[in-house]
């Protein structure tokens, strides 16, 4: 079952079960090629990024000791913002994915890494690595689709509460790290009933998150301002600003991964008995890239290669760029659409969707002038992998 049964175009209608199996084999081979060539230069890369991040963070915080002087405030805030973005994106997110586990360095390992973020690593790994990456874009299973508070696909049922979602999305962007922490806790679901609130497992997770939030806040909003002495108020403002910039940036990048027009979603039943090839196919159709230069790739933690990342979440992030042309070639040969665009274009596209879907599906259809041009792509009939699997088996 696809989400949008009524649509007139199925993007994988032309693929046979054998095609999909071949696609899977080609992607497996691509993955093996990267794994076989992982080595010292990759290890040097991540260590260089980690070192750069720590120098930036130490430098930024040192400069902020004198934050009551305006130039120091700007330089320090900029350095700290960049350091926090690097830590969350290119380092934390990717290390926690196990991308660097092969180095067997216990300090750069998915089982030991803790990141500069409100959500504890353990909970993030469960909701992100396990749920989101396994059930990517499956309605009702992948809570990343609108984070449980928004409607980002026509297939999600409209509710009057969605009218406020442009505002929710803005608030979520501003407080993104807390939004993620709440999301990892599944607060909406777990606070709903008394029984769930009293569940010991939930209470343990909640207190772990609160501990982490407290430690993080103490660091940024108490300890470092105190260390700044007379610059305490301006350092506090600087740290708030750095966290805000990090929040807005990561929110934008992550919105670009799965919300822009052209990204497909899938019905819960469509993944029953899914083959490896079909899983790959779902990742290909369910993700979107951001085009740009090396700095863009670094600052997005290479989530600018969201498609490649979703195909191979555990390959070192610095290698996505080199496999991207091969992946793109696969899209072309198998007649699929590689969704990509510049950051502003994709951000606008994602926001547009959030705003459009705040209203019921047919609302804007009645006012064609305001319909976005990318609409036909989104309206296409979506993949039906399960039926392909049954036909093939």
């Amino acid at each position, binding site marked *: 079952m696809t989400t949008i049964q009524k649509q007139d175009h199925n993007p994988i209608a032309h693929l046979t079960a054998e095609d999909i199996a071949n696609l899977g084999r080609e992607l*497996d081979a691509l993955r*093996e090629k990267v*794994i076989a060539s*992982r*080595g*010292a*230069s*990759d*290890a*040097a890369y991540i260590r260089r990024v980690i*070192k750069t991040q*720590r*120098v930036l963070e*130490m430098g930024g915080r040192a400069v902020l000791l004198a934050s009551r002087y305006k130039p120091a405030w700007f330089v320090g805030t900029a350095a700290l913002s960049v350091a926090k973005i690097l830590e969350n994106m290119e380092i934390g997110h990717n290390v*926690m*994915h*196990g991308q660097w*586990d*092969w*180095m*067997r*360095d*216990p*300090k750069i*390992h*998915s*089982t030991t890494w*803790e*990141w*500069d973020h409100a959500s504890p690593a353990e909970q993030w*790994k*469960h909701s992100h*690595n*396990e749920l989101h*990456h*396994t059930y990517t874009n499956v309605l009702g299973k992948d809570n990343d689709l609108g984070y449980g508070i928004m409607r980002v696909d026509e297939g999600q049922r409209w509710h009057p509460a969605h009218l406020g979602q442009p505002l929710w999305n803005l608030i979520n962007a501003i407080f993104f790290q807390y939004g993620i922490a709440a999301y990892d806790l599944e607060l909406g679901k777990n606070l709903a009933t008394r029984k769930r609130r009293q569940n010991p497992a939930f209470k343990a997770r909640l207190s772990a998150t609160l501990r*982490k939030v407290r*430690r*993080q806040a*103490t*660091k940024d909003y108490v*300890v*470092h301002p105190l*260390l700044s002495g007379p610059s305490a108020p301006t350092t506090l403002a600087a740290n708030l600003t750095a966290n805000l910039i990090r929040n807005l940036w990561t929110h934008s990048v992550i919105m670009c991964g799965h919300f822009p027009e052209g990204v497909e979603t899938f019905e819960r039943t469509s993944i029953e008995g899914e083959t*490896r090839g079909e*899983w790959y196919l779902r990742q290909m159709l369910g993700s979107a890239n951001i085009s740009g230069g090396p700095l863009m790739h670094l600052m997005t933690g290479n989530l600018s290669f969201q498609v490649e990342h979703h195909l191979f*979440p*555990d390959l070192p992030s610095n290698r996505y760029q080199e496999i991207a042309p091969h992946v793109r070639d696969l899209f072309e040969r198998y007649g699929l659409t590689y969704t990509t665009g510049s950051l502003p274009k994709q951000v606008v596209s994602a926001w547009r969707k959030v705003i459009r879907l705040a209203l019921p599906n047919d609302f804007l259809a009645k006012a064609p002038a305001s319909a976005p041009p990318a609409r036909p792509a989104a309206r296409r009939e979506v993949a039906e992998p399960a039926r392909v699997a049954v036909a093939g088996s």
Partner: protein
Amino acid sequence: MRSRARRFVELATTPLVPSDFWEVLDPLRGGANPRGRIVAVRPETRDAATLVIRPGRGWAGHTAGQYVRLGVDVDGVRQWRSYSLTSPPRPDGTITVTVKAVPDGVVSSFLVRRAAVGTLVHLDQAQGDFTLPLVRPAKALFVTAGSGITPVVGMLRDGAGGLDDVVLVHSAPRREDVIFGAELRGLAERGGLRLVERHTATEGRITPEQLAELVPDMTSRQTWACGPNDLLDALRETYDAAGRGDRLRTERFRPAVVAVGEGGTVTFADSAVTADADGATSLLDTGEANGVLMPSGCRMGICFGCVIPLREGSVRDLRNGAVTTAVAGDDIPVQTCVSAAAGPCRLGI
């Protein structure tokens, strides 16, 4: 006071620890294990080299004859091996290990042929009781073969002065293969010890009987032996038969070869569960089927939610057949959902 100051610094660095930042300024600091830097590499024979290492903070020193676990990054992957320390404790604090490159030895080949001055290495504290007693024995015998000379040379360099009557019987294929050959011969010429070289390429391997002929009072000497397991086993029998078992100390270099097969017995060490598994069933499935509380996630090798340490043995990656092997002390994390037993293995859960 100090711990309070430390706690405050930790509040400023969370979620990292202060040493994570120190490490940026001084790579020899940081981490639970001490670290060291290679400050010189000296070739010994065609296939052996001595590495001079300057340990950083936290290195507690060693006694001659002990070994150290050394971690090096080879092609980006942290690999740990044990090597005997060949230096006596030195005033300048440096230590040496002497490594013989074994065929297909990832780490030994790297250390002998590729390790450069400046390379950072990871260390464990020195271990082992293959050492000289504080009260030096009146008569000592060292029986060594190949790189088995390495712990003994450490003792000779440290305690040779305190030993009056020392015999060293050392086996190597040819004269030029003797590691520390010139040094040992020089020591013998100066009367520091009686050296018997056995060149096995022409004379064959030494037997306990031949040894008894060469050193008639062998079982009455305090004896230290290091070499192949069959030599050590034969010596053990001889000394025990003579009722002098307490005079023999042996040091075994752990066999590097682990039985690699299809499937095997999986031990879930902390759960006290043992199960037989075939080569196609994941460790995760095996554990779960036997009631072990396994961490798990996507069950397809992408989320790393199921990673637990492989303490010993071999596992095979079901996706590409790659075999990962751990020996005691390694604790290599493996993805249990896509790994199967490749011979007996022990997991840390």
